[in-house]
């Protein structure tokens, strides 16, 4: 049990590159590299893939404000902008609905609209989106009805839209648990010969969960056509990133799975969109999964029920307001003359219309049938559930009398 004298005890680490190579007299003749015959390396070893290309971008990838933005399709930029404005308005409206008691709770993505919108727009019709609980906006941007997307948070049922019809998985409340689902679905599609890609969203906090790890590993081993987008918005409720990870960046986790990692400015909508499109098409082409980390910020509190002043200063939020995804794209569009005041007013009017329709729909009292509680537990009710349904039926009838 004694500690040997071999340990340097200094904590310094001898890297292979730094290996002492000045050999003194050796019993057997040394090879040019200093090793002696009969002393072989482990037989099976070779680097399995070159880690170099897997390493993420040195700095967050950006397009807005760079020369490269000139190459982008103006139509796309306008579409992104329209969705951003609509998304911002959606977040505001949904938060207002919580104050009016029309929604139980709403986790806002104000400040994160670029990620939400770009994720939805990066997909083709046959692709699937796997949102986390915060990503109602991505679900809506993908085309799900704005009110149906809020069913979970209003509380009349769990998932309000049809995942098969919309190709949007249910909003996943248990963090990171939706990631293996995305991998499994993408894998299944590939086995069937379909060219479907799955895009899964997760937060910075969610990367700490075991399911994150298992999902990324399965995806890489199976070369599943799946893209993981981590929205690093700086917080998991109150817990800042530096209590969550010590990694150089979350995108660096990709290397350990053997997939490429990308780092992108999450408030630069065209940049997020481009990086995601590249990853999605790479997956579609059989290249396997990608991990994308988008750097963004949760400008609102965790939810309307949260008090963010308990864990952060407004001073921390300010610079992010200055780096606002909507404003950034608007400036670019204006500078390039791709939009004018009238164009902006039109976009805002469309967003207002969406908000008005949403308000109206959410103000209608949902019609609920308590008996539905028993309808979907199994394909067919068990005799146990038939008995329990009869009990509730009787209670409801008695109430009505």
């Amino acid at each position: 049990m004694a500690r040997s004298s071999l340990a340097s005890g200094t904590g310094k680490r001898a890297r292979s590159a730094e290996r002492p190579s000045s050999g003194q007299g050796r019993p057997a003749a040394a090879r040019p590299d200093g090793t002696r015959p009969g002393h072989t390396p482990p037989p099976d070893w070779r680097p399995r893939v070159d880690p170099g290309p897997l390493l993420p971008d040195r700095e967050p990838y950006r397009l807005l404000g760079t020369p490269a933005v000139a190459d982008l399709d103006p139509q796309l930029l306008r579409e992104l902008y329209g969705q951003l404005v609509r998304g911002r308005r959606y977040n505001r409206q949904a938060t207002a609905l919580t104050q009016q008691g029309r929604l139980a709770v709403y986790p806002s993505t104000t400040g994160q609209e670029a990620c939400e919108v770009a994720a939805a727009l990066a997909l083709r019709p046959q692709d699937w989106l796997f949102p986390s609980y915060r990503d109602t906006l991505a679900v809506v941007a993908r085309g799900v009805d704005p009110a149906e997307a809020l069913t979970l948070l209003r509380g009349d049922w769990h998932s309000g839209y049809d995942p098969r019809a919309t190709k949007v998985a249910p909003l996943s409340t248990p963090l990171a648990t939706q990631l293996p689902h995305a991998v499994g679905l993408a894998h299944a599609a590939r086995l069937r010969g379909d060219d479907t890609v799955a895009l899964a969203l997760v937060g910075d906090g969610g990367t700490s969960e075991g399911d994150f790890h298992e999902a990324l590993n399965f995806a890489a081993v199976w070369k599943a056509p799946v893209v993981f987008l981590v929205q690093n918005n700086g917080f998991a409720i109150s817990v800042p990133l530096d209590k969550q990870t010590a990694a150089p960046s979350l995108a660096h986790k990709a290397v350990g799975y053997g997939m490429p990692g990308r780092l992108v400015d999450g408030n630069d909508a065209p940049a997020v969109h481009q990086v995601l499109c590249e990853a999605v098409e790479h997956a579609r082409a059989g290249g396997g999964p990608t991990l994308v980390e988008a750097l963004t910020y949760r400008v609102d509190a965790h939810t309307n029920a949260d008090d963010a002043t308990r864990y952060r200063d407004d001073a921390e939020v300010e610079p992010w307001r200055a780096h606002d995804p909507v404003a950034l794209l608007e400036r670019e569009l204006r500078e390039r003359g791709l939009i004018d005041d009238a164009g902006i007013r039109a976009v805002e009017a469309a967003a207002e219309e969406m908000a008005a329709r949403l308000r109206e729909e959410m103000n209608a009292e949902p019609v609920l049938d308590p008996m539905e509680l028993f309808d979907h537990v199994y394909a067919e009710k068990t005799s146990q559930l038939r008995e329990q349904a009869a009990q509730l039926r009787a209670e409801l009838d008695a109430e009505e009398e």
Partner: protein
Amino acid sequence: MGTATAPAPAPATRKPATMAQALRQAMRDALAEDRDVHVMGEDVGTLGGVFRVTDGLAAEFGPERVTDTPLAEAGILGTAVGMAMYGLRPVVEMQFDAFAYPAMEQLISHVSRMRNRTRGALPMPITIRVPYGGGIGGVEHHSDSSEAYYLHTPGLHVVTPATVADAYGLLRAAIASDDPVVFLEPKRLYWGKADWSADAPETVPPLGRAVVRRAGTSATLITYGPSVPVCLEAAEAARQEGWDLEVVDLRSLMPFDDETVCASVRRTGRAIVVHESAGFCGTGAEIAARVSERCFHHLEAPVLRVAGFDIPYPPPMLERHHLPGVDRVLDAVARLQWEGN
């Protein structure tokens, strides 16, 4: 049970306190008295927990004693196991009932078995606080009652308070226990107030003692946690129908207080178990089975169960149809084969 009772009460004036405050006081006192006590979990530090139960503790005891962990429940409980191996007494918070499931492997394979595995060399004095139950309008995964999983896992204690005073006393006892205790906190009782004094908390019996909350003669309602107030209300309402119901608050589900429960049922001759979680293989199954066996010749009617339906916890707008309420309890009382029925 290797548990401590709370410190002896000193005369003090009581004032209204919530269960959340009593729980916080219990952790505060435990942290102050024993430097091996550590509080850890998601958002328990700076934020004071999403229910504010740990509010102020990080400021008072520092981030090494009250720690915001990374977001990973298996990791939280697994590292707590290692801390306990070294002699610490971790108090772990699972943010919500359903978010404790990722830690099931650590709980079943290690927390509950380590003492036994090592012939007592590595006890696991870990308290696992789990806000549980429904009735708060929570969205999916925020209203589960998972006590039956824990109860079916030998090596764990399972405790749940229904009053402000018990919240303090039972949590002190749980933290003081040399065995792992799953401490289930009824979310919808967090903000209920009662006259209570932090300076003179009542002493509580060791874990494993039920209490008769209301004496009665017609039948016994056996219940715990969030269903205790429901049963007390039902008992009041039942007086109008001529039933005088006894209400037993189990407080500790494991160890189970056979003595108090069976004494009551033998006295009344009738029993109903009331709880929120799904009935099938739930706590009520165990209680009905053991009461039926132990009190067989005293029973005038079968032991009935009023429990949640065997369905996933419903969306908030439908939860009242799922939760055992006063009416459902009274319906069951009416089915207890009274003379002339």
